[in-house]
């Protein structure tokens, strides 16, 4: 049903939190090496969609396959192992592990056995982390945690990185830096799914974009088409 060109091929996804129905039948495909922006106002279900795809939301229906393999019933670690990394909103840094430990605990080479994102490279990319190497995750400032979370995701050498509000709380220079890293990730052939409130940046850095409203995809297409879509601002509430 899906070509293995798709990293993610999700069809008819529904999800619930308890008795509230959050996602109403979503179809989403992400191709290899493709950068997709996910836009929508607060509370429209962006994060829920991501968590559902990754298997964290238990109450879900629909078909999800990763890399051509059906993983509708897969558990989150299986999804991650198949080559997906996740930078969650709120960062998810382990407060009781040092910066170093946070990074190396789950590091693994990619499917070809290469380690492009070595520990040293992460340290070069985020010099601030280098300075705080032995501190516990819980002692870092918000922005430092964000960098750590991205670094940690990269060190698992995924095929797809999902960034949920990766620039939240970062200083402008670091934000630029993150966008630069996103660019780097993009050019290295990793696919990315980006959620960010700065939709200009998202659209500028994506191949394709999808827009969510109330648990449904209301708009999708090439990034530049979307950028010029008159309905966009309405959906985003600007």
């Amino acid at each position, binding site marked *: 049903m899906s070509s293995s060109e798709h990293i993610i091929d999700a069809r008819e996804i529904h999800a619930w939190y308890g008795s509230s129905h959050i996602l109403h039948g979503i179809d989403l495909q992400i191709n290899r090496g493709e950068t997709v922006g996910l836009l929508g106002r607060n509370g429209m279900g962006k994060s829920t969609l991501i968590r559902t795809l990754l298997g*964290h939301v238990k109450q879900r229906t629909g078909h999800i396959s990763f890399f051509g393999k059906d993983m509708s019933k897969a558990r989150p*670690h299986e999804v991650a192992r198949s080559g997906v990394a996740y930078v969650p909103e709120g960062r998810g840094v382990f407060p*009781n*592990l040092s910066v170093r430990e*946070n990074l190396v605990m*789950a590091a693994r080479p990619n499917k070809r056995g290469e380690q492009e994102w070595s520990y040293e490279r992460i340290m070069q990319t985020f010099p601030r982390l280098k300075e705080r190497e032995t501190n516990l995750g819980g002692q870092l400032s918000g922005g430092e945690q964000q960098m750590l979370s991205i670094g*940690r995701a990269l060190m698992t050498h995924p095929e797809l990185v999902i960034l949920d509000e990766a620039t939240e709380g970062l200083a402008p220079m670091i934000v630029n830096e993150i966008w630069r890293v996103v660019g780097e990730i993009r050019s290295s052939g990793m696919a990315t799914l980006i959620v960010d409130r700065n939709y200009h940046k998202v659209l500028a850095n994506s191949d394709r974009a999808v827009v969510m409203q109330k648990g449904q995809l209301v708009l999708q297409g090439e990034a530049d088409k979307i950028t010029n879509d008159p309905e966009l601002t309405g959906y985003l509430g600007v």
Partner: protein
Amino acid sequence: MDLSVFLIQLLNSLQYGLLLYLVAMGLTLIFGIMGVINLAHGSFYMIGAYMAYALAPLVGGNFFLTLLVGLVLAVILGYLLEWAFFSFLYDREHLQQVLMTYGLILVFEEVRSLLVGDDVYGVSVPDILSGSIALGDVMTYPVYRLFVSAVCLLLALGMYLVFTRTRLGMMIRAGSVNREMVQSLGIDIKFLYRVVFAAGVAIAAFAGMISAPVSSIYPGMGNQVLIICFVVVVIGGIGSIRGAFFAALLIGLVDTFGKVLLPEASGVLVYVLMALILLWKPNGLFKAG
């Protein structure tokens, strides 16, 4: 108290402290690191002791073989227990675990009573370790106790290294604060925690087996060590392997000298110590790490 007696008492406290650490070590894993409030820890210890007694005749009376077989059985037991009783509790209110482990205590005690009866038993010290060494002209010290101390030290060191130096240790610690994120990094947390739990049970049972020859085996023995184990873990600082180690030694010291110097208050001393330490350092002696 003259010097030689004082030194022997020091040795006593060290040895008692190490034994305490051995018993509390499994709890450090299950409670301190996994965060499961495990009242049944004493039962695992009790199960170990009874295994040392009951398995011996089955494996031809060889103590070390008994240890090995017991250890394997304990790992299996722990693995199954986690699967059957705990795997669905992590998402729930922490206190639910209190209830679960309380139920388990009752069940384990009765099963033990049905299988082995309520008698008091003893296990003899293996022949090669049955000697004693003289301490001055005052008294002798059994080699076996020294052996137990050595095993404790080794285990303590091993566990410390695993936790601080290996990725496995990092994953376990990470899992104790954010299960979802650990999964998102591709780690099978369910399996990981099942293994940790099994290890905790195995260590507790091992403690029961190895200390069986120097203690006696009797109904209710598990509940007696339970509270003191919690004290050890908490004084040390929850999640800290190093802390639990020093806490155990400290308790050994206070208990030993307390019995001699302040006999009227010896029962309560450990608790006074705990209260004082926690009032002084509300997070235990050592923070996690």
